[in-house]
């Protein structure tokens, strides 16, 4: 396998971690997740069995914000600074570029979700008495959120490759991912991300039931969006000459 995507991942991720804006976003997403978690807990009072679903549902709701922020500038910033020309004239394929940029954005999204997850241990520490809690169920729920985040990040990479402006890519990603998360009609009533949980069967995941169908769906979506992003980058390369 080519090392190029890993080289790009390392460069992009290390540059992002040096940026103050990245840490502000980590803090903002974690704060939003904590606030949503607290609000959802108040609403689900007495239904402690729903704790993993409540917790993972809120993470699923904030993940689009992280995905939108960490993907929107992937191409626009390079285009604006002129470094895209140096990148596209290096012996790398469009697929390697897309994969490298996806890996860097996805690792930042996961890091953001990891910080946001701190609200659970904080809650468990402060709750008196601590609710019965199955760590395995939360782990499954987190795995589902991580899979969903991969699909959203891939969509963000596609939007970033297609849009000329960074803001347009960010708004498109946020709108599409939040719409997917908040589609009405979900059975997990009372949760802001309930419909998303239903579509993913997140609640089943967080009850410890592993259903491979949503996982396959999300992985397929991720691969499809990345494939489209590669094609868009390829066609933009040709279109830029006309």
């Amino acid at each position, binding site marked *: 396998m080519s090392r190029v995507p890993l080289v790009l991942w390392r460069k992009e991720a290390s540059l992002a971690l040096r940026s103050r804006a990245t840490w502000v976003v980590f803090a903002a997403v974690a704060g939003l997740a904590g606030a949503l978690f607290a609000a959802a807990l108040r609403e689900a009072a007495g239904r402690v069995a729903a704790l993993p679903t409540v917790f993972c549902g809120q993470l699923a709701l904030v993940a689009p914000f992280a995905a939108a922020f960490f993907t929107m500038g992937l191409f626009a910033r390079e285009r604006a600074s002129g470094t895209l020309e140096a990148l596209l*004239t290096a012996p790398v394929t469009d697929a390697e570029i897309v994969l490298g940029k996806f890996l860097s954005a996805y690792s930042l999204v996961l890091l953001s979700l990891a910080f946001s997850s701190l609200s659970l241990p904080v809650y468990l520490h402060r709750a008196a008495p601590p609710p019965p809690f199955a760590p395995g169920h939360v782990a499954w729920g987190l795995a589902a959120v991580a899979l969903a985040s991969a699909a959203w990040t891939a969509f963000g990479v596609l939007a970033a490759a297609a849009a000329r402006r960074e803001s347009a890519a960010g708004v498109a990603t946020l709108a599409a991912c939040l719409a997917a998360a908040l589609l009405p009609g979900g059975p997990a009533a009372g949760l802001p991300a309930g419909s998303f949980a239903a579509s993913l069967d997140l609640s089943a995941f967080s009850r410890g039931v592993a259903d491979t169908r949503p996982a396959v769906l999300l992985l397929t979506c991720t691969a499809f969006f990345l494939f489209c992003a590669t094609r868009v980058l390829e066609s933009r390369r*040709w279109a830029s000459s*006309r």
Partner: protein
Amino acid sequence: MGIDVQHLCKRFGRTAAVDDATFRVEPGERVALVGRNGAGKTTLLRLLATFLPATSGRATVSGFDLFSQSNAVREITGYLPEGSPVHPDMGVAEYLRFRGRLRRMPGPRLRRRLHDVLDFCELAALRTAPIRSLSAGQKRAVGLADAILHEPDVLLLDDPLAALDPVQARKISAMVASPEVSEGRVVLFSTHDAAFVRAAATRAICLEHGRVVADARDLAPLAERDLPAMLDAWRGAAEAAAPAAAEGRAAP
């Protein structure tokens, strides 16, 4: 094998940025692309660097077709884009290491070359400095170091002296003319600077409205005349030679 360009055209809508360009450059030649702003120099270099596809015509770089073997062309080409764009938040050596890894250079070779190019481009003392803290000339040197890092067969430099003060321009000019950069490889650079052409080029190709209007191998007159005057003189000489050549061909 050099560069072989045959009837290359590049159109942006109705405008021909490069119009039926035909020329050959052999290894060891250092060729200056000269012409006024908008003559098509940058577009021609971008075509040869595989950043833009041509509308028609064909070109090979070291025997590799520009369009069907573009990745092979990128492997053997070093390219310094206009303005030498580099990541400002990276350190000098960090950036060059990234570019070397992107070009799949093995570790020991990359370390050796990194040491060599940092020395050659007078960047050794600045290896950990963030690129944003460098002067324009030093940033251009980083771009040049990137272009020669992998020891390419072909070097394409888009206006390497643009916006540099005379001292920095002399430094970069001397680097381009030096054997470390030019020996055994094709060097094609665009410029508006007559002194740079005189110091670094063995030949000049003049472009006007995307067309090659003259291919000058005698650069001595540049010592006495500026580049616009020389462009006029070369174009005039080429126009005078064209009917004579046509008559020669028509004669039995």
